[in-house]
């Protein structure tokens, strides 16, 4: 047993750290460190900087143009990016659909889609949830009917994160109503510029436009855009979910946010209040424990000796911690979290802040982050999964 990274791993970390310091634009990291609004341009600029280096798909194997890093290297890369204030990479392309295309897509699909995902030029969205299919994802109804060389798609997807920027969308569509719900689902890649697609904003309670409804009205999709086999989409979707292991915990970002919480608590003079500081102390222990759990998983992946099936636990704990962080951040500013000035959450706003500038987005972030225990399989669904592994 050894807690420390090897000298090689530490050298790798150093190399990533220097690269990020040189290449991450300061205006972007400023926004991330202060929870200010990120534009499409911010996200895409960073994606393209990573793409140029061949790191936008940082978990990809070399045969598809990735760096071929192992689990530890991937973790170190993610950590260095997070601590430096890099925006979260929009996962739908490089983290979600790309591994599915690599594993189940045709050589043509791989050649067509992977380069654009790696370079950051093509923005992907996710078409999973529907109004009637949330936690019960297998009950998707959005229909794809085969007509000659095309599928004709009709139906609706929802909660499509940043779908307003999407060039392409990968969808779970119903191609059969026979048998169990899981057996009639297919995995389809759809060009969002196709006629018949409408994207409508859903404004969340923080006042932001982050998620969307996507409507499909007789949308013609070339049959070549089917990934793998018809009616096998559920298998691919599960593969995609299983691909998310440790970074679902997002412990690196939580470490960064804990530092911010301490800074703000000190500035607001609540750090000296034992009752408040103890709440930060509890969260600090929660974060260390979560990080240790993540490291245990990584160690298991590296040695292959003990596999640790704790993805559900990581999701539950990671999301609870993110929520608690935003809660304490808001409580630290107290009454100065109340003013809700939309423009004050924009970098470089020249207006008069109420309280300190850092107070402006605290309530909005708290509102926004209620999503983490709901998305990606609600925490209650995760508990069902954990219970299954414990009770058999």
């Amino acid at each position, binding site marked *: *047993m*050894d*807690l*420390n*990274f*090897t000298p090689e*791993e530490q050298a790798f970390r150093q190399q990533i750290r220097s690269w990020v310091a040189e290449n991450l634009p300061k205006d972007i990291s400023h926004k991330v460190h202060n929870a200010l609004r990120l534009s499409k341009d911010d996200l895409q600029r960073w994606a393209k900087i990573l793409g140029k280096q061949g790191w936008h798909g940082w978990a990809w194997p070399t045969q598809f143009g990735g760096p071929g890093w192992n689990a*530890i290297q991937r973790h170190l890369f993610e950590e260095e990016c997070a601590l430096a204030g890099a925006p979260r990479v929009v996962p739908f392309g490089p983290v979600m659909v790309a591994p599915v295309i690599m594993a189940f897509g045709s050589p043509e699909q791989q050649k067509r889609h992977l380069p654009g995902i790696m370079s950051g030029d093509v923005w992907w969205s996710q078409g999973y949830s529907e109004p009637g299919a949330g936690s019960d994802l297998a009950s998707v109804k959005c229909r794809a009917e085969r007509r000659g060389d095309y599928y004709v798609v009709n139906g609706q997807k929802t909660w499509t994160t940043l779908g307003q920027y999407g060039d392409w969308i990968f969808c779970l569509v119903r191609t059969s109503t026979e048998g169990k719900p899981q057996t009639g689902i297919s995995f389809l890649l759809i060009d969002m510029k196709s006629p018949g697609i409408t994207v409508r904003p859903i404004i969340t309670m923080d006042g932001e436009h982050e998620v969307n409804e996507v409507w499909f009205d007789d949308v013609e999709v070339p049959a070549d855009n089917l990934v793998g086999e018809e009616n096998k989409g559920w298998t691919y979707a599960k593969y995609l979910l299983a691909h998310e292991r440790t970074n679902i915990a997002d412990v690196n970002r939580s*470490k960064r946010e*804990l*530092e911010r919480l*301490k*800074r703000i608590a000190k500035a607001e003079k609540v750090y000296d209040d*034992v009752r408040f*500081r*103890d709440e*930060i*102390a*509890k969260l*600090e*222990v929660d*974060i*260390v*424990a*979560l*990080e*240790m*759990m993540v*490291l*245990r998983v*990584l*160690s*298991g992946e*590296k*040695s292959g*000796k*003990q596999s640790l099936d*704790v993805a*559900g*636990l990581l999701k*539950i*704990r990671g999301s609870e911690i993110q929520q608690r962080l935003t809660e304490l951040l808001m409580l630290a500013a107290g009454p100065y979290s109340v003013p809700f000035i939309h423009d004050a959450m924009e970098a470089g706003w020249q207006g008069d802040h109420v309280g300190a500038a850092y107070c402006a987005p605290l309530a909005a972030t708290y509102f926004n982050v209620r999503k983490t225990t709901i998305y990606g399989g609600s925490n*209650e669904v*995760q*508990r*069902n999964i*954990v*219970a299954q*592994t*414990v*009770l*058999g």
Partner: protein
Amino acid sequence: MDFDFSDDQEMLRDSVRKWVAKGYDTERRKRIVQAGGFSREAWRELAGLGLTGLFVPEAQGGMGFGPTDAMVVMEELGRGLVLEPYAQGALIAGGVLSACAAQPAVDGWLEKIAGGDALVVLAHQERGARYRLAQVETSATAAGDGWTLSGAKSVVPAGDLADAFIVPARVSGAVDDPAGIALFLVERRATGVKTRGYGSADGARAAELALADAPATLLVPAGGATHAGHAALEYAVDIGIAALCAEAVGAMDQLVAVTVEYMNTRKQFGVAIASFQALRHRIADVKMQLELARSMSYFATLKMNEPAAARRRALAQAKYQLGVSMRFVGQQCIQLHGGIGVTDEYIAGHYFKRLTVMELSFGDTLHQLGEVSNRMQDTAGVFA
């Protein structure tokens, strides 16, 4: 970074587990509890496996092993609900005495600990101190070549049956001054030493220790501004915390296994109670606390060789997590059993009681939260 156990450590685990399974079943445990809570015979069996010398250097007849080996042993002793104070008599005594082996006072004791011929335990608890280690009223007075100690210590593990005590006592300063604390060795059979034994809440044994001009030999001098004696006491307690964390993981692991088995066999409303979602979510939460605890037990052990400040901070974080986990897992596993869980006959209650006592040892959860809170830095994390 590597959390795998070596082959040697797996063998060590096997040997302890086998001894527990064969030599320390619930019937024997019950007999030991009824006989007072400590068995010298069981202690000698542990010595026979080489375990009491785990931290004793090979030159003194021990194994000279490290914190991870101790963790492996403690997990298995916790799983087996072993009553004998191994963390105290082997790990703290072996660790502290090895660290000051040059002192004449240590002469011969390490060999006796390794051989199972002597039980040496830390006697640090005082009535007014709660969990504050710098709060020491027991006084030490230089007398000729040696020292005499006067004062009282509480809840000393197997104190009326131990052979000697490691005793923090004050040589100078105010009652809470860390600069004036030295560590001494006091033999139980010496003049001026009185003990009063009793059973503890978990079925083990403890004692009150009264010292009236009792002769003592110096282990670690107070060290004035270096706080050497106080630092050695903190180190001793941190050995104890790391050990308890591992013991708790073993105990919780087994308690959860027992509970899962019960949930899958007990039927109500015509079905196994494991089919009810309210209970399924509860066991998921229990599993969460168990894995967080295991993670922090690893953390505690792997931070044992860090510089004192980093070690103290990490150990406080670990004991806080373990405190939260022990209470939650203990309470919920009793609840998941229903009525059978609260009986003396069934094993779950005995795990519950041991987990409860461990929370109260070496700083309870609120105390550790205060320690973490006072030691917070700008950055936090496993490597911060």
